[in-house]
């Protein structure tokens, strides 16, 4: 941890705030994961960590090392890009597996909400 004490006060404050914000959002995401009741609701909670949480922590990292090294350090942007590009893959995999299970088990969570073949036929809006 060389040179962290060289950080000017304004930068240290901003970085600390961003780190707390990011880790707080990630924590909220995990709490949501535990608290929400159904699978489809749970899927939403961790995205707090991958967007707001990761975003704030990465901005803090960019700010910290840009100030310390007196040059723009931007490779955290790559993490942002890769996280954004890869999360849909796992999410869609999970969501499609869940919807497949629900349809084969004739569970009421999807089909009663969207209609029998909601995505396939002319059904636009859902019926309850």
């Amino acid at each position, binding site marked *: 941890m060389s040179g962290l004490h060289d950080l000017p006060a304004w930068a240290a404050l901003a970085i600390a705030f961003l780190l707390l914000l990011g880790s707080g*959002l990630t924590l*909220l*995401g995990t*709490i*949501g994961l535990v*608290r929400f009741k*159904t699978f*489809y*609701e749970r*899927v*939403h*909670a961790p*995205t*707090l960590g*991958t*967007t*707001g949480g990761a*975003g704030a922590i990465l901005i803090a990292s960019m700010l910290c090392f840009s100030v310390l090294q007196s040059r723009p350090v*931007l*490779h955290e*942007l*790559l993490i942002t890009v890769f996280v*954004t*590009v890869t*999360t*849909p893959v796992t*999410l*869609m995999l999970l*969501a*499609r597996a869940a*919807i497949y299970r629900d349809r084969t088990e004739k569970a009421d969570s*999807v089909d009663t*909400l*969207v209609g029998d073949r*909601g*995505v*396939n036929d002319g*059904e*636009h*809006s*859902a019926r309850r």
Partner: protein
Amino acid sequence: MRRLLPYPLLTASLIVMWLLLNSFSLGHLILGTIIALVASLSMAALQPDKPRIRKWHKIPVLIGRVLVDIYHSNVAVAGLVLSGGRRERRPGFVVIPLTLRDRTGLAVLACIVTATPGTAWVEYHADNGRLLIHVLDLVDRDAWIETIQTRYEQLLREIFE
């Protein structure tokens, strides 16, 4: 030139990535360029569809809208988690008819829908263009259809089609 640079965009982004990961110097520029050229030539062997971007100047608009929406939905979902069971949530599915057919455009839309907390891409049927998404707090179905169609689909069609 086409044979040497089958995917100019990919080559350019690989060079930028190399320079971001290492610090900028002439040696790294040359090394990064060689690696990017080899990588994009091997990509050409896989023969993926080449995405065409028609309106470059619209991309910052798209990024801006996504960032604004990510901010708003982060606040909204964080609020929902904090309120716990005290406030009733209304999770639900929405079917959205899409006219966007470009594969890259759809992939970008999938990234946007997934990256926004509170909405999740569930299913897309390529033959009739219907997209099924799940919304954590569904107040107004038509408002969601309207949002996806006017805020994102139109813009993506302008960029990619």
